[in-house]
Each structure stands twice: as structure tokens, then as C-alpha cells.
């Protein structure tokens, strides 16, 4: 059944063809929010790329700019207050930031699509879910009502909604959280996009459902050779699914690595802190490590390394000079002055005790 869907879909794919499997290149993206209180630099030169069938996880805490990155790539940034002030986002080699709104809209949906965090609020409450999925086919493919609805039922079956044929007429609020997220995913993949951005797709769900949704995303990705950008703050979610990880902090990518390398040996103190803060079953009775302090105010990003006020290894150089994203190994980059040491598993000298961090939060 999925193969018939695929064939139909492939028959109508557009003129966009990736070069050497390279789908999306984000190059030096900069976004700022102009508010009454001042200008908040939410994204400060983010670069990454995405290939066919690849999963890139963008990891970071709240306010690190991961969702804004996704919105900027999708072109759905609320403007004002948000403005893309620099950089390029190339899809199949063409800069989509430079396109007309009209042309850009033809990319959203059929080429690059998105799944949102809270599926209840991402579905229109006044229309049955089947109607909403069918709308995708009617709008973009010009299908008639009954064909589009039949297609919607098939898609709902594909995302494993039990009794899809009956539930096609149900409204979003009649579904559970996990089912809603499946419907959202069905809508997002309806037009067989080449790139799917999932913005914290499992955050609003409970753990067992999280695993099912991640598995579904993984299956769909493998089946359709989609490039998947997975935005999350949950290291546990990432480990199984992602191929590569970009860790963001204060609007910058601070570490970029293949997933196994990153887990084996983080090359940035922030990543190290994140990994250490995962509770582990084999370390009972110990105090759980946490990263003290708060992420910086984006209107006043500290000079030097933005992480220096919270870093255990911060030295004078960290407060004065901002580290570039150094190449520290195969497919590996890190924005830390001590990345070379970290990546080799050596610990730079501690400059403060962990419990003495400014504004540190004790667990």
C-alpha cells in the first residue's frame, strides 16, 4: 500500500533535483528580532547541510534558536518582529531566501514540510482531520473531493491510525495526543516532501507514544528517502534516530558531529554538560550534574564565547575571543578554544568548582 502511494507521488514530483544528494544547505543564517526593548540576535551565523535520507538533529535548550532556525528555513518567521538579516538557505542549489513569496510557497509543502510540536493547536479545530489532509491534495494536486479523501484515508492508515476510514470525519479534539501528532505527520508528508522538519515532534507526548512517533518518522524517512531535520532538546530522542547532531547555543552551532562520535566524546563543554545531565541507572545515589546558570539574554550576548559564564573551563581567552567553529576531526566541528583537548578525551583545567557557578542551580 505504501508502494502504491509512493509511485503516485513519484509520478508527480517536481523539477527540484538535489545535486549529489545534497538537499538543503544553510549558510551563515542570521535572524534577529526587533522588539521594543532592543534587538535580540536569535541566530548568529548558523550553517549546516542536509542530504537525502539523512537525519540531522538540532539540539539545544529553550531559546537557543533551534525553532527559529526552522522557521527561517521554512519562511514562516513572523515578520515583524523577526527578520532574516544574513545568510543563504539553498534548496537544491537555489537560494530560497531570495525567491519571491509566490515561488517560495510552491516549495513549502511539496518540497520542504514541517511537523509542529503541539499537534492539537496545529490542526484547525473546525474541520475534520480527513478534510484537512485531503485539502493538501486538493490544493496542491488539484484532486477532486472524493479522490483526495480516499488518499487521506490511505495516508491515515499509513501513519497507523486505527479505523482510519471511520475516523476520517472526526475532529482533532476527538483524538489523543499521539494520534493527533500522527495526523500532523500525515499532513506534512502528504505531498512527499524531500525535506521534513520536525520541531520537537514528541515533546507534548508521553514517553511510550514518543517512541512510537519517532519510529514512525524513522520508517517514513527510510521509505521516502527524506532528509529529516529533528529539532529537540531531548538527547534521548536523538540518539537512536539521528545521523548527525548540531548542538546550538545562543543562536550559534557550538558542536557539529556524527551521532556516535558526539556521544562517545563531546568536543564542547556545553555538549559535555548536556550529556552529563542525563540521569543514568548505573549511577545511583550521586547528585545529578547540571549546567548552572541560565542561557544568555539574546540582547546582550556576552563577549567572547557565549557559553563562558556557565563553563567550568572558562579562562581569560574565553571571555575575550569568540571561538570559531573549528574543524576538530572527521565530520566534526566545535566552537571551543579547548576543543582539541576535549575531543581527545582530556579535560582542560577546571577554573571553578561545579557548585560555585555564577547563578548556578543546584539540582
Amino acid at each position, binding site marked *: 500500500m505504501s508502494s502504491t502511494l509512493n509511485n503516485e507521488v513519484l509520478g508527480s514530483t517536481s523539477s527540484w533535483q538535489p545535486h549529489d544528494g545534497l538537499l538543503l544547505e544553510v549558510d551563515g543564517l542570521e535572524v534577529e528580532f526587533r522588539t521594543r526593548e532592543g534587538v535580540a540576535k536569535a541566530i548568529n551565523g548558523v550553517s549546516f547541510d542536509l542530504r537525502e535520507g539523512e537525519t540531522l538533529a538540532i539540539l539545544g535548550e529553550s531559546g537557543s534558536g533551534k525553532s527559529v532556525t526552522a522557521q527561517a528555513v521554512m519562511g514562516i518567521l513572523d515578520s515583524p518582529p523577526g527578520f532574516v538579516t544574513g545568510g543563504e538557505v539553498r534548496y537544491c542549489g537555489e537560494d530560497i531566501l531570495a525567491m519571491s513569496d509566490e515561488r517560495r510557497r510552491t516549495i513549502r509543502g511539496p518540497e520542504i514540510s514541517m511537523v509542529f510540536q503541539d499537534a492539537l493547536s496545529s490542526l484547525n479545530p*473546525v474541520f475534520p482531520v480527513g478534510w484537512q489532509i485531503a485539502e493538501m491534495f486538493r490544493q496542491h494536486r488539484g484532486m477532486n473531493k*472524493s479522490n483526495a479523501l*480516499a488518499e487521506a484515508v490511505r495516508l491515515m492508515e499509513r501513519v497507523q491510525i486505527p479505523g482510519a476510514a*471511520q475516523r476520517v470525519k472526526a*475532529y482533532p*479534539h476527538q483524538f489523543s495526543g499521539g494520534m493527533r501528532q500522527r495526523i500532523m505527520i500525515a499532513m*506534512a508528508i502528504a*505531498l512527499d516532501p524531500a525535506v521534513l522538519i520536525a520541531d520537537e515532534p514528541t515533546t507534548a507526548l508521553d514517553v511510550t507514544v514518543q517512541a512510537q512517533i519517532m519510529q514512525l518518522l524513522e520508517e517514513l524517512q527510510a521509505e521516502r528517502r527524506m532528509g529529516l531535520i529533528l529539532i529537540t532538546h531531548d538527547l534521548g530522542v536523538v540518539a537512536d534516530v539521528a545521523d548527525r547532531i548540531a548542538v546550538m547555543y545562543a543562536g550559534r552551532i557550538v558542536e557539529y558531529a556524527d551521532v556516535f562520535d558526539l556521544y562517545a566524546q563531546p568536543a564542547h563543554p556545553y555538549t559535555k554538560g548536556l550529556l552529563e545531565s542525563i540521569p543514568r541507572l548505573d549511577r545511583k545515589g550521586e547528585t545529578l550534574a547540571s549546567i548552572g546558570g541560565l542561557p544568555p539574554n539574546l540582547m546582550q550576548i556576552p563577549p567572547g564565547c557565549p557559553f563562558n559564564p556557565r563553563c567550568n573551563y572558562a579562562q581569560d581567552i574565553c571571555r575575550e575571543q569568540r571561538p570559531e567553529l573549528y574543524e576538530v576531526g572527521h565530520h566534526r566541528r566545535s566552537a571551543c578554544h579547548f576543543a582539541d583537548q576535549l575531543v581527545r578525551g582530556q579535560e582542560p583545567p577546571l577554573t571553578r568548582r561545579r557548585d560555585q557557578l555564577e547563578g548556578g542551580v543546584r539540582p
Partner: protein
Amino acid sequence: MTEPLTAQEVSGAAGALVPATRAADEGRSLWSDAWADLRRNPFFWVSAVLIAVFLVMAAFPQLFTSTDPYFADLAHAREKPSAEAWFGYDGQGHDVYARTIYGARSSILVGVFATLFTLVIGSLFGILAGYSGGSLDALLSRLGDIFFAIPLLLGGILILYTFPSDLETPYLVVVGKVVLALGLLGWPNIARLMRSSVLQVKPNDYVQAARALGASPGRIILSHILPNSLAAVIVVSTINLGAYIAAEATLSYLGIGLQPPAISWGLAISEASGIGLIRAAPHMLLFPSIFLSLTVLAFIMLGDAVRDALDPKLR
């Protein structure tokens, strides 16, 4: 599965056997669902029947009475209801029943068209202001404020006094003037409501999601913003409809809305409320007032029923 079972699911427990095409054949949309819901609502039927009766009354008053509403016999002036004249006679010896039946036309025309006028203009401006924001919003909102500042009746008096009608003015022109006056003063009410609903709906994730999935601005407004912000406007409009009918009656009562020889409930009430008349001949006031109240009530009930039907969460 943790989700609540819907009636459909329970009945379709035999379930997956139902072919997918059956579901696909029925075109389900917001409006067809709302209709399915309305059909089960007794209030809808009561109000719909009442409105239908009043509409027929407005269109074909001859169906309800064979008496000429313009025929007056002073000998019968202020006579109480009898088998001959069910509602009695008014001060000029007109048959009150015939006058009341014929009066429906003016009230319904003014009410319906003033409401449509405000609904269309108000929604359009409200959506434009709410969706686009910025300077267009500021401009439209201030424009609305100017009209909003003028009280409905005072403004109506002012406008109709500036453009008076006399005996020669055709009936429809007189009605048109009243409609325009009420509409001109009434639209900011709807525009404000629409604007605030749009502002409430616009930041919702599903609007974002629609953009992310490639919907055009027109599509977003029509499929996502309008259906989600329409409910409040429809309810208020139906209530306003009653208010406009009452305002028409008031303006006629004051002698500047519809003018005799036009027949309207407002005029009838105006005539019937002269000093001493209420006690001497209460039937002159009672019957047009009952019809007026029933019409207003019917539209408000319809508004409520439609509101409930349009909101799937109340289902």
C-alpha cells in the same frame, strides 16, 4: 487507546470492514456538519419556522389577510378585537391584523439588509485590519472608532434628518435610507469583533502550520481564519438584527424612519403609544409589539443554534 470513543466509532465497531470509499463519497465540510447538527436542534426548527413565516409574510402578505390595510373606517376606531377583526382596529379605523401582517415587510427588509450590510463591510474590514496589521489596521480601526463614537439612534436621526423623505419618495428608497443609516453606524461593531477574533486566531499553530504546508494568504484567510473567527460575528449579527428592527421601529416612532402611508411595526407602535391610548386601546400596541418581539427572538435563537452548530467542540 486513550481517546474517547465517538458515537461513530461505537456504531462502526465492526469497523475496518467499511470500505474507505464510502467515507470519501460524503463531502464533509464545516458547513455540512453544521447542517447535520442544526437538524437535530429543536431551537433551530422553532426559529426557522418562525422566520420562514415572517419571511413569507413580508413577501406575500395577501396570503395571510384579504383585508386592505389602507382601508380605514373611523366608525370602528379603537374597537377591541372581535371575530370580525381579530386584532381590533386602530385609531384611524384600520384593521390592526392586516396592518401588522403588512408591517412585517418593512421590519424584515430593514433588519435583514442592515445586518447583511454590517456583516459584509464589518467582516471585510475586520479581517483586513486583523490579518494585515500595521498601518492598514490603524487606519481602519480609527475609521471604525469615528463611526463607533456616534450612538446608533442619534446618528440615525442625524443622517435621516439630513436626507429626509417625503410622501413622494418611493418605498424602497425610504427603506434603503434607513438600511444605509443603520449599516453605516453599525459596521464598526462587527469590524471590531472580527478584528479581535482574527487576532486571536492568527497566532495559532494551525495558521503557522498551514503556511508551512504551502497555503496561500487567501487560502489561510478563507479556510483557517474565517471559519474560526466567524462564530462570534454570526451570533452578534443575529442579535443585532433584532436591534436593527427595533431601531427601525424607534426611528419610525420618532417620525423620521419610515413615513406613513408606509406600514411598519414601528409606526404602529408609535401610533399606539400616544397618551392614554395604552390604557384605552392596548390591543393597538400589543399585537405589533408581539410580532416585533417574536421576530427578534426568532433571529436570536437562530443565531444561538448556528453558533452551537459551527463550534465542533460543543458537539
